[in-house]
């Protein structure tokens, strides 16, 4: 079979450029939107994702890390009793009001008091040993480098949280928060800043594959007050889901994705239809010679698949460049293999849908027109 679709596309590529651009930019919009959503809402779970503990223990029904309430202190003992658990440590959550000499008014901050020891579990993925050591200084805090401006400080400056002096010892990357500013302190400094109780306990296991088994046997022990255990991945997902779904942001994102899809399909199909109509006499001749309409539809669809492939490569290159630039500028972005696959499927779906719409152009390929 002569590869009519491919040969036409390669030979007359300029006619297909608008369709390829339409697919490519629809792809960029979908990918960047997904990356921003993952980045923004992923920051709701930064506390979990930056920590290597497998189990989180908190107040029952907690929807998001930032919405925790105190649990009983002796829960730590209960967790330590399980032979699978190798380490347990508390985490304090304090909502505070940040003021500095250069800040314009107060800034809402989320203070997380963590074990700053060398082998501490909390934030072990983003806090190297030398920073943990610095955190051990009284009143030391660490913030995200992109928040320095809004906090009105530089590294080495002093500021006040709820009227208590703190000292910015370092600024790191990857700590941006959703709806506020994250501030890391040691457990001791958190006490000074007004922490009244443990908000979470995090636990490390010998064998991470035993997470669900440990959660099952350690749950529901009323002696240690009201608490609930979650695996780290469940708690991270729960936090992100809360911000995406319960705040309505997720629905807005899906709505926007649908708009991108529809607009992309309209532009691509119109470009493809114009190409089909331009070749209607050739298609009509093929039909007169006995090539069935289904065979002609396959040619159009195969052109759509080629356009989708080229568009995806174009969109992929542009998106990669934009993602790298965004990362450099501390714009919160994220991407997972699953989401990348969904984007690819959507872009291909867009091309296929456009191909089906463009098939309408074949209605003009009536061989009777050739004899007028």
């Amino acid at each position, binding site marked *: *079979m*002569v590869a*009519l679709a491919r*040969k*036409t596309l*390669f*030979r*007359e590529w300029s006619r297909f450029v608008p369709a390829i651009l339409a697919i490519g930019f629809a792809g960029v919009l979908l990918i960047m939107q997904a990356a921003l959503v993952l980045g923004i809402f992923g920051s709701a779970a930064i506390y979990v994702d930056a920590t290597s503990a497998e189990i989180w223990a908190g107040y029952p029904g907690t929807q998001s890390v930032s919405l925790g309430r105190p649990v009983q202190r002796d829960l730590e003992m209960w967790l330590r009793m399980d032979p699978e658990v190798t380490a347990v440590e508390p985490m304090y959550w304090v909502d505070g009001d940040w003021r500095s000499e250069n800040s314009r008014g107060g800034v809402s901050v989320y203070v997380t008091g963590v074990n700053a020891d060398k082998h501490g579990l909390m934030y072990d993925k983003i806090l190297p040993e030398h920073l943990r050591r610095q955190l051990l200084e009284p009143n030391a805090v660490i913030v995200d480098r992109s928040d320095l401006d809004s906090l009105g400080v530089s590294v080495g400056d002093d500021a006040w949280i709820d009227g208590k002096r703190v000292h910015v010892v370092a600024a790191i990357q990857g700590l941006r928060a959703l709806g506020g500013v994250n501030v890391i302190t040691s457990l001791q400094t958190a006490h000074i800043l007004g922490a009244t109780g443990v908000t979470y306990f995090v636990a490390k296991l010998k064998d991470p594959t035993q997470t669900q088994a440990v959660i099952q046997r350690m749950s529901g022990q009323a002696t240690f007050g009201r608490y609930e255990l979650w695996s780290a991945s469940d708690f991270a997902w729960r936090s992100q889901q809360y911000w995406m779904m319960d705040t309505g942001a997720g629905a807005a994102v899906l709505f926007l994705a649908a708009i991108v899809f529809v607009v992309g399909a309209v532009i691509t199909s119109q470009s493809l239809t114009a190409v089909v109509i331009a*070749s209607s*006499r*050739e298609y*009509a*001749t*093929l*039909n*007169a*010679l*006995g*090539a*069935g*309409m289904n*065979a002609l539809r396959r040619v159009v669809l195969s052109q759509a698949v080629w356009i989708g492939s080229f568009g995806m490569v174009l969109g992929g290159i542009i998106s990669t460049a934009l993602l790298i630039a965004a990362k450099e500028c501390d714009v919160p972005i994220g991407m997972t293999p699953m989401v990348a696959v969904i984007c690819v499927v959507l872009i291909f779906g867009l091309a296929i849908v456009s191909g089906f719409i463009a098939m309408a152009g074949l209605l003009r390929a009536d*061989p*009777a027109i*050739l*004899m*007028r």
Partner: protein
Amino acid sequence: MSLHSENKKPSLIADKISKSFTSGLIQIQILSELSIAILPAELTLISGPSGCGKSTLLSILSGLQSPDSGTTWAEDKALSRASKRELERFRLYHTGFIFQGFNLFPALTASEQIELPLSYLGLGKAECRKRAVEALHEVGLGHRIQQRPAELSGGEKQRVAIARALAKRPQYLFADEPTSALDAASGQTVINILRQIAHQHGSTVLCVSHDHRLIQHADRVLEMEDGMIHHDWRATNPPPDHQATHSHFLAQQGAAETRRQDPLA
């Protein structure tokens, strides 16, 4: 109407076919209860002024359009009652078409233009290629196999279109003004090829044209006017008003005989 002078069974028959088109509020009757039988192995020409309905008759006889009333037959098959799918199959396996416009895909080489419709017949790649090369040689384009339409002259393009129709080895070959866009030399070549296909391959060649060169070479001429056939005559028995033209043609035949042996010389 005297339809056939020889003992050949007609290969195409139109029985009282009518066709009209609506243009705005006006209905235009193109064909009115027209009956005709076309014989195989000869070049039949439908001629007449613009708008007389000759192209409509051709498209109905070839199964591209259905008549409003009446029946068309291709041997024993009633084309006018066939479904769209059946008509596509009929066209695929039995017909070849040559149109006024060449309608070649710009991206395909001369050989690929021919291989493409052949592939729909279910032929293997090698067989398609072989037939395409043979057909291009038959129309004298053996040296232009890899050329694309942009690299071919008008006459060469029309010859590729003829080779495309020819390669299917069709039982029926329909041509609509095949020479109107061609210069004298290219037109003559195309005429010779059409005649050769009818006589050597035994195909039914039905051609619509107002080109007088074609009239001289046709085995049979159907003269149409206002949707009716006014004259139906054969090269062996032309009407008086065509005698002079025909004599001139016969005189030329001797000189052209050598060329006809090799129509592409």
